[in-house]
Each structure stands twice: as C-alpha cells, then as structure tokens.
C-alpha cells in the first residue's frame, strides 16, 4: 500500500525562547492527557453499564439501595422458561458458528484460492450481507419463507404439492438460518487474509507426496487457517448468541425463549428490572469469559502464514465441474443472503395490501409515501438515525483513535492491560449495554434524550475503531512522529500533519464501519428510546406491530442507507480487508 502523502506545511521550526518552552510543555501535557483522558472515558463507558447491571441484579428493588438479595438469581434458576431459553441460546450460538464457519471458509477459499470466474466481484459482493440489519434480514426471511404465507411456499406449492412441507422459519432453526447468512461474512473476513497469504508450496508438497484434495485440506489447509478461524468463530458464537434482533422477530411470536428476548421482556410491562439484570449478569459473565478465552487463544497462537521464504500464492485450478460448483455456491449465497431479502422487501413495500403474493398491477408507492411524508415518527426516526450514526461514529473514532495511540505509543504494562478491558463491550450484547445504561442514567438529564442512545452506541462500538486504528498504528514507525517533534513541531502539529494523514485510511474505514453499524443498531436503542428519539430500527419494531408494507418500506430506506455506506467503504476495501 502506498503511504499517504504527509505535509510539513504549518510546522514552524523550533525556537528556543521561553514562549517555545511553554508551548513545548503544553504540547507534552496534551500528548499525555488527551490519550489518557480518552482511555479513562473508555473505562467509564465500559465499567458504567457492567457495574450498574451487576449492582442492580442483587438489589431487591429500584429504590432499596441497601436491600441486598439473591432472589433474582434464585427465581431464574427455578424458571423452566429461562432454562429452555439458555439451551436455545447456546444451540443458536453453536449452530450459527458452525454454519457460518463452513460457509465463510468455503466462500473465502473460492475467492482467494480458486480460479473461479468473477471472484473479484464476489470478493466484494460476499460482504454485502454484513452491512444489512439483522432485524430487516429476519423480517425479509419471514416474508420469503413463512410457512403459510411466504413468497417461496406460495410460489412453489403448486409444483411441489401439499405433501412437501417447508421448514418452519418460526423456530430455533429459522433463527440459526437467518443469523448464519448474516454472520458468514464475519468468518469470511477473518479467514480470507490468511487464506490469501497461505504458502501454496505446502499444499503442493502434500499433493506431490500423494495426498488427495480432501486429505490436503484436512491436514494442511485447515490447520493453517485454524487460528484465524477459531478467533472468528469465538466472535461469531458470542455475538450471535447475544443478538436480540432476529429472535425478536422470529422466535418471540412462537413463544420460543431466548435469553436476549427474555431480557427485553423482563424490561417490558410488567417490568422486573431485577430479573432483567440477573439474566444480563449471567450472560455478561459468560461473554466476558469467552472474551478472555479468545484473548488467551489468540495470544498463544502464531498467525503468520507468510514466511521469509519466497512463495507464490497460486490459485487452485478447478475442473469444469469444480468451477461450476464453486460458482453455484457463490451465486447461491449471494442470492440467498442479499438478493432474495431485497426483492422480498421491495415486493412487500410496493404492495398496498400484502397477501403473500406480489401483484404488479396493484403495486404503488403508498407505503413509501406514508413512511417518508405522512408519519412523523418515521421521519423523525430517519433523522435521528443519521444523527446518531454521524455523531456516534465521529465520537467513536475520536475516542478509539486516542485510545489506540495510548495503547501503541505507550508500551507500558498499563497499556497492555487496558486494551483487552476496552475491547470488552464488543462481546457484550447490545441489549445488555442498553439495560446497563438504562439503570445507570434513568435518573439523569440524559434519559429521554437522543444522547443516551449515542452514549450507549459509542460505549458498545468504540473498541472497533480502537482496534482498526491500533492495527494501522502498528505499521507506522514512531520515528516519523519523533522526527517531526525533533524538528520543532508540537504534538498537535505532529498529529495533524504526520499521523492523521498516515492513519487516514483506518480513520475513514472505522468511521464508515461505525456509521453503518449505528444506522442499524437496535439492541441498546430499543431500551433507551423515548417519544421523539426513535431510530430507524426502533421504528421498524414499532411498525412491525402495525403493517407489513410500512415496515418493508422503511426497511428498504434503511437498506439504501446501509448500501450507501457500503459503497463508500468499498473505496477503503483494501484497508477493510486487511490487505
């Protein structure tokens, strides 16, 4: 990658007067305090919701601060619904991890290691589902595959006959299916880099010694990928098990217990915050334990697939049948995860009365007109989502950037300790972050304002920015900054003219990533919104209780916003893909 041009304009040469000394001292103070303040703010954002949830889980009521009890946990232990919910949640996490790992590795292998036609395009297209809202994905799959009214059953039933029963999407299997489609790009992103840089000579050596394709895959390729795959799988397990959006739309209507929806239900009337907190505490401790395991696993493994030896990553030459199969898998994934959901949303959104079948003759834009011009709540929600995404992404990148600087440029024991702690929110489900901030801030002026949602969103996702920028900082030699300082530049000048231009790709990629995530965020905002502070995702949940057409129209608008973010991000694809 070509280094971005830096500029020395604006840097004044060093002087030796008292004013210069004062400026130098001020600059040094700033250099120390700004990153340290960002770290402190990050620690508060991490600790705030965790501590408040833990604390509330052992209180008997909202007001009795000295009335400690274990009753909330005892009640959970005796609740058969919760036990079933825990089993369903674990099964979902494992199922999603397994399916998305298989599919993600397969897609990454096809794109990175084979000679299949169009792999350059698929490299990007495979990422599109990553940018969709899981809630919208779930809604669209209900339109596609609901057993009695879905588009596919209604279209195919005349050919397949009544004897053929479509799998019931309103089930744990349905949740796993939808989540797997949307989590496949996570695994894909984790493994495509190592797969691309893998030394083909290792596989060649195996084949020369008589190993077949599957034997080589099992004994050479998979072990080489295992660290990256395991790392991705742990992330997928923890985040998919904690995701609230998909179970809300698919499992809840059938009364299927899942822990994230049980937490949400406990916050709803008749409200039992103690129960919600106890559930959240158990889930949070489990996810933190997984995060620790993940950190230890990553730290203990070597990830280098690039060695000092000369090598040439070569594509595997597939036969005609192999190429057709690989192309088929690629197309099937893209159609299933991206094209079908969008087509279904368009069909429903253009239908004035959704009957399970699209009737082009009666199609019109009335649902779009309604959500864009007639309903104040959806208009407000669109504006709020954009505000949350822009402000949240900006704050998140500023915070993450300064924290990354603290971690990478102050190589102390403290900074080594700080990084994993600041990364914790990534593993904690949004619904728990939202609950934590609800407990923490309900009696502050932030409650009922848009800022409580922004605070929760920044707290949940700033580690993404920190990690992205931190990775880029690793590749920038500190001598560049030191040279600028030695030439008389203040710290701010060194940042402005040297570091920020060099970090620009990571800063933009992080900002766009946070923007996209915050436009679709639901877990935290569903518990924190008030009248007038609804976001698009919250409005989707409210509308989903009213009319299929309205929810589909607003979902299409959200998809357009997210795809806009995606195409902007494509410009930073090289950075994003870690190349």
């Amino acid at each position: 990658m070509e280094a971005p041009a830096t500029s020395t304009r604006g840097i004044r040469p060093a002087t030796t007067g008292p004013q210069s000394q004062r400026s130098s001292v001020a600059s040094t103070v700033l250099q120390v305090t700004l990153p340290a303040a960002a770290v402190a703010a990050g620690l508060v954002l991490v600790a705030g919701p965790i501590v408040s949830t833990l604390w509330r889980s052992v209180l008997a009521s909202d007001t009795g601060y000295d009335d400690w009890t274990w009753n909330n946990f005892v009640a959970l232990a005796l609740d058969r619904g919760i036990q079933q919910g825990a089993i369903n949640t674990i099964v979902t996490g494992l199922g999603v991890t397994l399916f998305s790992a298989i599919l993600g590795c397969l897609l990454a292998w096809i794109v990175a290691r084979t000679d299949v036609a169009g792999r350059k395009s698929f490299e990007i297209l495979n990422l599109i589902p990553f940018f969709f809202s899981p809630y919208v994905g779930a809604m669209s799959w209900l339109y596609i595959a609901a057993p009695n009214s879905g588009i596919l059953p209604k279209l195919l039933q005349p050919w397949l006959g009544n004897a053929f029963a479509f799998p019931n999407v309103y089930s744990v299997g349905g949740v796993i299916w939808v989540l797997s489609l949307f989590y496949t790009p996570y695994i894909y992103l984790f493994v495509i880099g190592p797969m691309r840089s893998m030394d083909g000579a290792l596989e060649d050596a195996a084949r020369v010694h008589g190993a077949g394709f599957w034997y080589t895959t099992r004994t050479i390729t998979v072990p080489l990928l295992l660290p990256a795959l395991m790392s991705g799988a742990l992330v997928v397990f923890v985040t998919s098990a904690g995701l609230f959006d998909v179970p809300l739309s698919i499992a809840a209507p059938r009364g299927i217990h899942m822990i994230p929806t049980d937490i949400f239900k406990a916050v709803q009337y008749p409200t039992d915050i103690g129960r919600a907190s106890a559930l959240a505490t158990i889930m949070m401790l489990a996810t933190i334990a997984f995060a620790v395991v993940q950190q230890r696993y990553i730290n203990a493994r070597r990830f280098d697939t690039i060695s000092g030896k000369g090598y040439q990553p070569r594509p595997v030459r597939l036969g005609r049948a192999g190429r057709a199969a690989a192309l088929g898998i690629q197309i099937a994934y893209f159609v299933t995860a991206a094209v079908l959901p969008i087509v279904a949303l368009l069909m429903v959104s253009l239908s004035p009365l959704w009957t399970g079948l699209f009737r082009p003759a009666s199609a019109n834009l009335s649902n779009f007109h309604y959500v864009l011009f007639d309903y104040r709540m959806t208009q407000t929600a669109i504006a709020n989502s954009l505000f949350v995404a822009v402000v949240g992404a900006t704050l998140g990148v500023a915070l993450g950037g300064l924290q990354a600087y603290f971690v990478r440029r102050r190589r102390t024991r403290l900074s080594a300790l700080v990084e994993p702690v600041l990364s914790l929110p990534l593993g904690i489900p949004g619904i728990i972050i939202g609950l934590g901030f609800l407990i923490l801030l309900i009696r502050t002026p932030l409650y009922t304002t848009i800022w409580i949602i922004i605070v929760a969103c920044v707290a949940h996702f700033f580690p993404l920015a920190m990690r992205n920028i931190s990775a880029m900082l690793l590749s920038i030699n500190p001598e560049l900054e030191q040279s600028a300082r030695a030439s008389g530049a203040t710290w701010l000048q060194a940042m402005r003219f040297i570091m920020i231009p060099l970090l620009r790709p990571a800063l933009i990629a992080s900002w766009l990533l946070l923007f996209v995530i915050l436009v679709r965020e639901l877990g935290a905002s569903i518990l924190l919104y008030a009248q007038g502070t609804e976001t698009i995702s919250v409005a989707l949940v409210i509308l989903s209780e009213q009319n299929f057409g309205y929810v589909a129209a607003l979902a299409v608008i959200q998809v357009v916003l997210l795809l806009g973010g995606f195409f902007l991000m494509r410009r930073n694809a090289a950075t994003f893909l870690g190349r």
Partner: protein
Amino acid sequence: MTSRVGAAVTPEDTMTRLAPWIAALTAFVLTATAAGAQEAPALARLTGADKTPLQKLIAAAVKEGQVVYLDTVIQPATNDTLSEAFRKYYALPPAFKVNYTTMTPGNVITRLEQEMRANRITVDVGAVASPPWAFARVKEGRIMAYDSPEYAAYAKSFALGLGKPPYFAFNGAYFFVPMWNAETLKFTGTSWKDLLGVAPSGRLSTTDPTVSDSALMTYIGLRTIIDLPFFEEVAKLKPVLLYKSEIIASRLISGEDLLAMYGMPTRAYQFNQRGARLQVMSPKEGVVLLPQVMFILQDCPHPAAAKLWLDFILSEQGQTILAEREALISGRSGFVSPIPDVVPSIDTVKTIAINWDAITPDSMQKARAEWAGVFKR
C-alpha cells in the same frame, strides 16, 4: 407594458410594476387578520365569563406549541384527521404540533412507567385499555386531576366504574372477538368454544396476557364464563402469540394464520375497506368491553395543550372521528354512532361483566401465572 433598454426607471414605473404585488399582499394581510379574528369554534359555544378560562388555556397551549400522546389504537391517518380538527376547533396555529406514537398496550405502559421512575415525563397524554393500571397510578399521584368540562357527558360511564373523575374517562372502547379471513376459512361458529377444531396446530393466533393488559383483562373476563380446560385445548393448538391487532389482521389476510382468537372488529372494518374479506363473530356468551382510559400525566411538559386535547377527544366531534375511523365505541351519553352497523351503541353490546374495582395487582398476577402455566410460557 414595454421597457426601454437603457432608459431611466421612474418612480411611477416602479409603482406600476409593484402595484399587483402590493394589492396581493394587502389582500393576504386582510384575510389573515380576519381569519385570526374569527373565534375558535370551541369558544363560540360558550358565553360571557365562561369563555375566559378556555381563552387562557388556548393561549397557554399556543405558547407550549405541541402536545405529545401515546395510544394503542389510533392509526396515523386518524391522528392526522384528529389533529387537523383539533387545531380548527381551538383555532390553533398550523405550527402547533400533535406528536404521537401508537404502540402495544404493554409498550405504552412500559414507556410511561419508565418515565415515571425517572421523574422525567415527556408524554402529556396516555391512553391504554387498562383501568386497573390507571386506578393504581391515580393512587400514586401520577395522573393529573383535571375536571374536564366533557366529563358531564360521561356520568353514566363513571357510574359503571369505567373512569374516575377528575382523573380519567375512556376515549373509546373496543373488544376482542374471533376473526378470520373469508378467503381462507369458512367458519360459522357462534360461541367461543366453537374455536376448537377449526384451525390446525400453529394456524391459530392468540395474545399474551403476561405482557398485555388488554389481553389480560379479556382473559380475566373470559375465565368468568369459560372453564380452564377450554384454554388448555387452545394451548394444545400451539397458537402464535401476537400483540397488535393490525398484525393479527395482516396475518389472516396473508394466509399465515387461519383464525384469530383476539381479533379486533375495528381492523376488519379498516382492512375490508382496502379490499380484504375479514369476518368477525359475535360470541353468544358475550365479549369483554375494554375501555381505553385516557389521562394526563402529572408533571407533563405541555399541560394546557394536554387538557385541550383530552377535552377535544372526549367531545362529540372527537368521538365521531374515533367512531368513524377507528370503530371505537363511545361512552358519551346520547352519542349516536355514525356507522351503527360497525360501531354499535354501548348499550347494545352483550358484555361480560367485569368489576374493574375488584381487579388488584395480585389478582392480575394470579391470572398471568395461570395463563402462563396453561400455555407453558
């Protein structure tokens, strides 16, 4: 009129050119002034000193600039009609905003309770079909005492326990009855008990009394006339749990569900106007009438506007709009339904008697637990 290029422009020329604009502006100002001077219809009904309190209330509402309400029934198009009529009734400026959200009853109560816990009230008026909840909030001092002039027309409803002056009346009542789509099901039942054996497992929808008070009140009412084994048989059908009448109707139209235990006649009326063929049954045992109680929250941000809104909704005009657009049954004495075939008079509905006063938090929790036990939730 021609203009000469390069010639000097005289004051007369300028006046001639501006004359039509000046005339139009003058006409606009005169019209606007006349309109402003026109008395609000709400004031025109009053005489002499009676006008003063309302004038003060209107002035205060104009200063507040908006009213915010939460509701479980009113659809956005109905809200638009109500808002427009409300502004006209009190001659409020077009900039006056009526902000609202429609949610499930459980969501409305959750939001209101959270704001009460936080002591940060952003909602002015709430409406939810749970009189016991409203009675309890009155006792806690969370609902504003406001003796609406419209309460005089609700004396009969108050006498039946369907409200509590000066805290709340009901802005409209509804009930749940079995509903189906005539395009997918031929059903001729006349009793609640006829629901069994009609739809196969998984094709019947019901609702969850553990999260919805309107569903809970209906369950409590039905349990007074139907024994538990009926509900156990319903539970065996693995019903889908839905929380909003719009979605209950939408799923019947799409064919996902065949029969809804808790359909709302209002939705059948609305969807059938758009081409659907939903039908409802009037069970011979009767229905549980759910009065949607409407109240102003203590410490709300726009109290004057809230009072005007409550007065308007309870007025003859407000009730007519709600009956026409939402098919709600009015509790106003002497109210004549504009669509009697769809919205019957409250006296003609065969209701299952509910003693709202006797419903306590404990009895509600007991009913929730019973339902959850039967339906394994």
